[in-house]
């Protein structure tokens, strides 16, 4: 088939692309975008399907990329980032800053709000995965046996969580089609923010109790011992 005289033109003012003029912008993305992995330049924009570099033993396809037919391609619209891994390989990643689409995955630390407490389990809505805020919440569930690591059979759900509490938990399974299964059976996991009956944010006094600064009443909770690495990770402390 003969080659048509199609040329795209990109006009800065009105953003119209027409096929009448000649090319004023070089669209040859595969060429100029081939990254020089040794040089860190200004952020380079990538779009899905864009060929980044040959896939050989020197590079690893990281987040936002995939390798196929001997090349590493971008799978995200974002900008390119390269890093060196411990074994001397170049990790190629495509990043969208603060705008990643995350879904809860097994072993991820999530932040959730308790919505419903029953004797056998409590339900919650996951509002944060790692340090990324979710646009839409996912449903989660903490079963009685996953509240703490020891004396599992003596757990009382009402003494562990109350509706409205903010908890940090680990995803232990994708669960069923309805909700993710979460666990707080670690010292660092559990309630991080809770409000007393008087409506004041409480302060933790032990691993199972929190105190209201206004009424001095103590309430039972499965309190998280928030550690520095988690504060950094989640961006929120008690």
């Amino acid at each position, binding site marked *: *088939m003969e080659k*048509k005289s*199609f040329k*795209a033109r*990109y006009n800065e003012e009105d*953003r*119209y*692309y*027409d*096929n*009448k003029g000649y090319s004023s*912008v070089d*669209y*040859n*993305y*595969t060429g100029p975008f081939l990254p020089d992995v040794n040089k860190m330049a200004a*952020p380079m*924009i990538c*779009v*899905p*399907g*864009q*060929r980044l570099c040959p896939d050989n033993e020197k590079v690893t396809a990281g987040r*936002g990329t*995939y390798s*196929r*037919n001997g090349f590493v*391609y971008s*799978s*995200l*619209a*974002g*900008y390119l980032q390269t890093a060196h891994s411990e074994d001397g390989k170049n990790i190629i990643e495509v990043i*969208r*800053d*603060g*705008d*990643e*689409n995350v*879904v809860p*995955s097994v072993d991820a630390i999530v932040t959730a709000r308790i919505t419903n407490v029953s004797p056998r389990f409590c339900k919650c809505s996951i509002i944060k995965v790692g340090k990324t805020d979710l*646009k*839409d*919440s*996912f*449903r989660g569930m903490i079963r009685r046996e996953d509240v703490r690591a020891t004396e599992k059979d003596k757990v009382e759900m009402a003494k562990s969580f109350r509706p409205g509490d903010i908890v940090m938990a680990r995803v232990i399974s*994708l669960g*069923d*089609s*309805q909700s*993710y299964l979460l666990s707080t059976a670690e010292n660092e996991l559990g309630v991080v923010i809770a409000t007393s009956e008087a409506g004041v944010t409480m302060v933790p006094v032990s691993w199972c109790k929190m105190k209201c600064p206004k009424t001095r009443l103590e309430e039972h909770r499965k309190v998280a011992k928030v550690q520095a690495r988690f504060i950094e990770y989640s961006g929120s402390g008690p």
Partner: protein
Amino acid sequence: MPADSRRINGPEKSISPYAFSKPCKDIKITEPSLQRKDGRNPDNIRPIFLKTGLITQAQGSAYIEQDGTKVICSVYGPRAVIRKEEFSMQGQLTCDFKFTTFSCHNRRQYQQDAEEKDFSVQLLEALEPAVLLHKFPKAQVNIMVTVLQNDGSVLAASVTCASVALADAGIEMYDLVIGSSARISGATILMDPCATEEYSDKDSAHVNNGSVTVGLMPSLNQISAVTSKGELEFEHLNKAMKHCVSMCVDLYPVCQQALAVAMETRINADPKT
């Protein structure tokens, strides 16, 4: 056609006055050098306007204009599955295609009709191969497509628009899917037909009268959607498909550029980077 009881519907049966006017004559292009009604050559496509991120509520969105054909697409998710469905380790993609009631020559209903349902399925099957569904197990991504104005090649425009919206939403994809369509009339192949040039079964009974729409992932050279209408001989069909594929390849940099521009503004607006 089931009526929507929550709306004030028009009279139960009404007919557009154009139904009684004389039908348009068959397009009369026999020589490839001849010009079309809007001054294009058979090979030429209409100018394209493509912009992303217009709908602030959506995770990603795109708007495409191919002269008279205007399509909006917004993408929501990945989010929790609303309906009770079976558990799947793969993410789900849903697609909702709708013509606005005033977008076509004849008025359309508010509820999805058979053609719109058919388009939804075709759009879904065009985009599914391109999306890395395993990246969001158990969750779903919803794609909503609204046609504001229909001036031909709607499905092709919707495929392009939806794939750009998906990329804008940050959904991981193997490649963009670019749609293109062609009208076959005898030996002539008209690229990117407008509404008057589109195939309808009212046309004469000649063989080789029909249309083809192709969805292509250019960088992987994979066809993710192909659909045809009308009786076509194999050779003509094949030739038209090849034309469509090369049109997709031509359009690819335009879509890449539109996305890149959107990303650039996003990065510049974000002081973090």
